[in-house]
């Protein structure tokens, strides 16, 4: 029965020999003891000295591992994986004005990047225009400032939006920015049916980790469902949510916490879309994920393999999805910013390379590699080119993209994949018991679980139990480094052109469009009250990002950080 990988007699023999080997190991330790009292991953998961068939003796090849492109997708979501098409090399980029960022996009494309990814500045991320009093000093610093549809036009000038896919890291104002993207694309002659890309649009992880906070959880989810509904009907090639573990991990979570909380966020979105009346197989295929690739090589690979298997099982068993595409955990990966050091910054190239390799062996669909100077600032051209070249060297020189899921069958990787799934499932049970993610967030549960992990890790660093070269082993000073400078003058210029833009608008048309947006927000969530068509009209009539978000804030109320620690 089944497709077990080892015969009973083989397991018996291995078990016997393993016991003998353990005795040899103990003897050898008497001569030379182990280097550490305890060996563990960066997430503090203890690991054994050796993994053997005994650790995976109960695995069923077809049920647990299977073939690439087939349920449960442990070995990859596509049948051909990187043999037919490499992952998309998608560098997160945004700096200063829309023109400066457009220039960076063209620079990256000319050096071989294959997908775009927009980093917005903090005012844009929080739903404020550059002229807001809350935006002082922030314009263009951590990304690009986008206030209007004209900024959006400048951002993508000279780029074929039907050919390239664009990922936009935007959360509470995701619907507004997406409306600007669609409206601009249509103004430029592209069809919304052919637009491909992703909006991050994952509001739950904002409460849990990233803290780009605007509205309370319930209306935030309503807007997410509006975008999913609109995408399903109108923009079929768009990934309407990028369910993100990245920020949860950067905030200090372990790999298991990243996996569990993110998968649970996904469960929540699926439940909410079904409540709206959508058929699971109509929208689930457009949900995508976003994982962190941290410094512990095998742990990351195991996490990504476990994520695919978990999501497939959840979609099939919990949500009764029928279409295999609905069960696929397709994902973007970014290497771990928090693993980098300001000390000896060139070492960050080595860290990023290792993390990128793990992402590739983990089967990512797209990848951002951090630049060596991202600890200081958004990257310089010099640094970002090395980061992009890192992916290209791994893709074309190293041979790791030649064979699909080459680490499958590794006793360690398979055992670790199982353990990731088991421990994440514990959290999922717990969250179910708590009444779901929104209830858990209100109890501060995921936030404090992550804070505990972050604090524990920091203490381990202080005690030298975890090592970061240049920090607590071979410590070094922070050197001066030539980094990108953002001219503070651009803030004034952006405000000036925003004011000119506002003067040029047809006030009547604009007010009518914003009134319609408000009416829909106040109405019962349903297709007739979906905000997206109203937003597209509003931004075409010149509504700024903040004007749309102000409607949201006025109708739905705001949310402030509960400030727990």
């Amino acid at each position, binding site marked *: 029965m089944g497709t077990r990988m080892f015969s009973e007699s083989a397991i018996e023999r291995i078990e016997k020999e393993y016991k003998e080997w353990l005795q040899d190991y103990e003897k050898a330790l008497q001569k030379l003891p182990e280097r550490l009292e305890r060996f563990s991953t960066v997430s503090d998961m203890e690991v054994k000295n050796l993994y053997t068939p005994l650790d995976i003796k109960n695995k069923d090849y077809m049920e647990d591992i299977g073939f690439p492109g087939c349920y449960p997708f442990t070995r990859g979501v596509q049948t051909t994986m990187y043999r037919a098409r490499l992952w998309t090399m998608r560098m997160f980029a945004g700096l200063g004005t829309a023109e400066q960022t457009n220039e960076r996009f063209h620079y990256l494309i000319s050096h071989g990047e294959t997908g775009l990814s927009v980093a917005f500045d*903090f005012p844009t991320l929080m739903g404020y225009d550059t002229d807001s009093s809350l935006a002082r*000093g922030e314009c263009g610093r951590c990304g690009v400032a986008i206030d209007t549809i004209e900024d959006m036009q400048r951002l993508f000038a000279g780029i074929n939006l039907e050919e390239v896919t664009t990922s936009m890291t935007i959360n509470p104002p995701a619907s507004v920015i997406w409306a600007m993207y669609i409206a601009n694309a249509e103004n430029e002659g592209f069809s919304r049916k052919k637009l491909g890309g992703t909006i991050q649009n994952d509001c739950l992880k904002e409460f849990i980790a990233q*803290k780009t906070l605007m509205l309370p959880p319930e209306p935030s989810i309503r807007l997410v469902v509006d975008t999913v509904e609109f995408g399903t009907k109108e923009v079929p090639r768009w990934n309407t949510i990028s369910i993100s573990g990245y920020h949860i991990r950067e905030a200090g979570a372990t790999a298991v916490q990243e996996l569990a909380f993110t998968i649970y966020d996904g469960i929540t979105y699926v439940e909410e879309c079904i409540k709206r009346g959508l058929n699971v197989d109509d929208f689930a295929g457009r949900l995508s994920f976003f994982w962190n690739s941290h410094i512990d090589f095998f742990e990351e690979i195991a996490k990504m393999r476990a994520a695919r298997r978990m999501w497939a099982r959840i979609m099939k068993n919990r949500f009764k999805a029928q279409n295999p595409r609905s069960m696929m955990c397709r994902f973007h990966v970014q290497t771990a910013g928090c693993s980098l050091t300001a000390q000896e910054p060139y070492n960050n190239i080595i860290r990023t390379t290792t993390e990128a390799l793990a992402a590739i062996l983990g089967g990512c669909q797209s990848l951002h590699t951090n630049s060596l100077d991202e600890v*200081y600032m958004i990257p310089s051209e010099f640094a970002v080119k090395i980061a992009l070249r890192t992916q290209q060297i791994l893709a074309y020189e190293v041979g790791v993209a030649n064979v699909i899921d080459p680490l499958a069958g590794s006793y360690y990787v398979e055992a670790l994949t199982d353990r990731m799934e088991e421990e994440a499932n514990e959290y999922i049970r717990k969250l179910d018991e708590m009444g779901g993610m929104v209830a858990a967030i209100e109890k501060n549960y995921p936030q404090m679980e992550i*804070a505990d992990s*972050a*604090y524990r890790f*920091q203490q381990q660093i*202080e005690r030298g139990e975890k090592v970061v070269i240049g920090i607590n082993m071979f*410590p070094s000073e922070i050197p001066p480094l030539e980094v990108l400078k953002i001219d503070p003058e651009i803030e004034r210029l952006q405000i000036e052109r925003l004011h000119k833009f506002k003067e040029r608008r047809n006030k009547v048309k604009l007010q009518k469009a914003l009134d319609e947006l408000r009416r829909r927000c106040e109405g019962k969530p349903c297709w007739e009250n979906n905000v997206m068509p109203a937003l597209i009209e509003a931004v075409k009539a010149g509504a700024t990002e903040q004007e749309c978000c102000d409607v949201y804030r006025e109708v739905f109320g705001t949310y402030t950080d509960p400030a727990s620690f």
Partner: protein
Amino acid sequence: MANERKLRILVAKPGLDGHDRGARVIARALRDAGFEVIYTGCHQTPEQIVQTALQEDVDMIGLSILSGAHNYSFPRIMELLKENNAEDIVVVGGGIFPLEDIPKLKAIGIREIFTPGSKLDDIIKWVRENVKPRKAAA
């Protein structure tokens, strides 16, 4: 003095930056070291931070910022403290700062800047050596 009251420290996050891992770790470490810690949470304006500092009668403010917007918020906070006759509150910064900005921030009265990789123990030691309870306002 043996019976000096516990130091009261405000950990604050100015601006729109949501990177709060460092602030929350520091807040907890300072609390575990025996100080009274108040944490503002993210997205605070300079006005809100100074108001909280005065209301809570703190001895020190630790500003955590990773967005690069410190050249606006830090001087504004120092200005507001001065306006409120509270420039004796010790203000320090933590986060990401271009090296050339550090002397400028110290020149406006920021007493210390803690950059990435700073040890918790060193920060706690610095606080013990450099911060004294404020004299009660008349």
